């Protein structure tokens, strides 16, 4: 028998592997709607998340508005109130906040780390369609009297299946974006050098991957009991088992990318390198770690609110946000900020987030006892004070996402947002967020003083008005993007870009980049500009 000394070449070595990193690029792309349906291109998927997530956001916020209006003037039947309340919560987080953040992440992380595509483009596409179909099923389940604690048996089952599909899809999309930043960075772009938005995506996606599976675990248990069991073991009070997702500290996980967006916007608009990058990265990571809330499930552990861990985390989380705010302030002071709409949105998002985290710290302090008093509909799960926190955080995400949308508009849409409308949206959004959230915080305290309980109508009504303003702001943001100007902005559209997304065309070409030289710092564009100045 002949013995060969060298191993025969394998198929893979003879023919280079099919570059699935270019799935969905024009030479494979039939174009138009058919092209979009089959695309694995991160840019198409990102924009689809942003548009549809915003539409779902308008719906979810409208339900929140209805709920508070109902509390003020009682015009809806009891069944509907429960469903409006729970769909407002579920929709606000899983159909709006997380998908919109994922949309920005899917579009931007490959551009920021110098990659040609998102990791696992087919999985990213499957995740998007799974999320969309799941969201549709979830809304359909509500429409036929489903949702947690709903009346229709099969409709409730459908709700759980749909919710699980939405969760699995969002988790898959999270794996794609976090893997992009971890494993697909261009040479020289160490993990400590990635733009802070990409870093916040790493933190946020990690936290989603560590906490949202616990929601999935709850859903499996609820579904099994509801469908196969007696329905008495767990499914007797279903939303109580899910309420922890919408309370502190778990609620903060949806706001982690906001810190990254604001950091990138502030540093770029200030025209200087971010001061103390290491501190900022630590602050974002600490905010993520302290927002881990999967252990704090009062349905299984009613005394969790007495635990030192819960109280400690709830108070300590204020520190990273304060640290980040200080970092932004120093950066703005050391540069010459260009005060345009992205910066205004960033300011609003930061203010709302700081306020909600401060209010959350008050919420966990035991002697205030803000957990007990609640709306009759949902008992102890989400008292009015927690409702106020929810609206503040959702408004912060709305403004944070708007900051991202307007800041990266040249990349996303190939034009700038219409500045006057965007500025108006920033103002309306900030005022709306404050007016939506603060009255409920006051109401939380007022419930403890018998004389003030009469203020319920006024405070809930005010909150409804605030929520309406947030809706108006979201609409204005999209109008400003639709009415934008500048047909072909420069690659570095703001003229002061720092990270790699500003080296490619606006909007980026297929494949995103040509050959990128090795990156030598966290702000490669500033390096290039400085070396040009020096020569």
């Amino acid at each position: 028998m002949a013995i060969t000394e060298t191993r025969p070449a394998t198929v893979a070595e003879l023919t280079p592997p099919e570059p699935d990193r270019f799935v969905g690029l024009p030479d494979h792309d039939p174009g138009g709607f058919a092209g979009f349906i089959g695309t694995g291109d991160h840019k198409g998927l990102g924009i689809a998340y942003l548009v549809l997530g915003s539409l779902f956001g308008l719906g979810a916020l409208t339900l929140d508005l209805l709920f508070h209006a109902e509390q003020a003037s009682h015009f809806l039947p009891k069944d509907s109130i429960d469903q409006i309340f729970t769909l407002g919560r579920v929709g606000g987080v899983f159909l709006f906040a997380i998908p919109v953040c994922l949309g920005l992440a899917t579009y931007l992380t490959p551009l920021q780390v110098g990659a040609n595509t998102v990791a696992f483009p087919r999985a990213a596409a499957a995740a998007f369609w799974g999320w969309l179909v799941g969201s549709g099923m979830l809304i359909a389940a509500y429409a036929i009297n489903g949702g947690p604690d709903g009346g229709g048996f099969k409709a409730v089952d459908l709700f759980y299946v749909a919710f699980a599909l939405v969760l699995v899809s969002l988790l898959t999309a999270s794996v794609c974006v976090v893997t992009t930043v971890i494993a697909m960075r261009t040479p020289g772009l160490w993990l400590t050098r990635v733009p802070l938005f990409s870093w916040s995506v790493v933190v946020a996606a990690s936290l989603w991957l560590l906490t949202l599976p616990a929601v999935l675990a709850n859903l499996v248990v609820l579904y099994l009991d509801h469908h196969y069991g007696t329905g008495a073991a767990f499914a007797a009070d279903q939303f109580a088992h899910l309420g922890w997702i919408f309370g502190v500290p778990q609620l903060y996980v949806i706001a982690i990318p906001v810190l990254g967006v604001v950091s990138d916007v502030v540093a770029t608009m200030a025209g200087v390198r971010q001061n103390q990058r290491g501190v900022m990265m630590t602050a974002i990571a600490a905010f993520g770690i302290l927002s881990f809330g999967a252990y704090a499930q009062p349905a299984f552990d009613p005394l969790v609110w007495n635990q030192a861990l819960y109280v400690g985390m709830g108070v300590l989380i204020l520190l990273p946000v304060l640290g980040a705010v200080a970092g932004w302030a120093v950066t703005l002071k050391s540069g010459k900020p260009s005060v345009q709409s992205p910066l205004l949105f960033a300011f609003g998002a930061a203010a709302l987030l700081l306020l909600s985290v401060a209010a959350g710290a008050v919420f966990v302090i035991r002697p205030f006892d803000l957990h007990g008093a609640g709306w009759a509909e949902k008992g102890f799960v989400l008292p009015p004070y927690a409702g106020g926190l929810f609206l503040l955080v959702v408004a912060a995400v709305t403004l944070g996402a708007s900051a991202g949308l307007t800041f990266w508009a040249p990349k996303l849409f190939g034009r700038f947002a219409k500045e006057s409308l965007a500025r108006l949206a920033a103002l309306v959004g900030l005022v709306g967020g404050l007016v939506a959230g603060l009255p409920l915080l006051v109401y939380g305290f007022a419930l403890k003083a018998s004389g003030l309980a009469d203020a319920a109508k006024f405070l809930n009504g005010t909150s409804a008005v605030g929520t309406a303003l947030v809706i108006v702001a979201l609409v204005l943001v999209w109008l400003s993007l639709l009415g934008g100007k500048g047909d072909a902005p420069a690659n570095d559209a703001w003229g002061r870009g720092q990270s790699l997304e500003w080296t490619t065309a606006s909007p980026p070409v297929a494949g995103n980049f040509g050959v990128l030289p090795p990156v030598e710092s966290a702000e490669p564009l500033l390096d290039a500009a400085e070396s040009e100045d020096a020569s």
Partner: protein
Amino acid sequence: MAATLTEPVAALPSAAPPPPAPRPRVLLVGTAFAAAATVMVFVGMVGVYLSVRTTLIADVGTWLPSGVIVPLVQPNMMLFTLLLSSLMMQWAVSAIKNDDRTNTYLAIGVTLLLAFAFLVEYGYLFSLMKLSMDSQQGVLIYALTGANIAMTIVAMIFLILMGFRSLAGEFTSRHYDGIAAAALYWHSMVAVYALIWYVIFVTK
């Protein structure tokens, strides 16, 4: 001329993208995150299980409903089966690292066979337990074991896909990401069963 950050892109729109630079570890990193998320599903469920169990034992004194027997012999055998499958999985990884393709296929086959045996053993165990879904205990035990079966099937599908890819000659000693990733997911599945074995079958 050395490329700078602004030059090549300006000339790019008409140019085709260059061939991809080698991106090591992408599948491995993605799988690690996916495995972490899957493990967290079980951690969440075990948390619920332990919390409900503690409350019930404090109230009633026992955990399992009367008439329900949870044997330990079968779960022990299942654990041994899976531990052996982990070993076989590592055999596959080590074989592909040495470009030993025959042993890779053999090891993947044996691993899959052991996982199939594990699923059969689960079926037998369920028939012995006579546990209905009418109680908290039934719901939780079936939620955990059922999800474990689902994870096993996912791990098997992953390994089968990677097996086909290695049959197509895609993996070599220099590039064996796929097999390593399937192994990582496989070991996390075994770890999850070990957790369930201890929490449900040993502790009872």
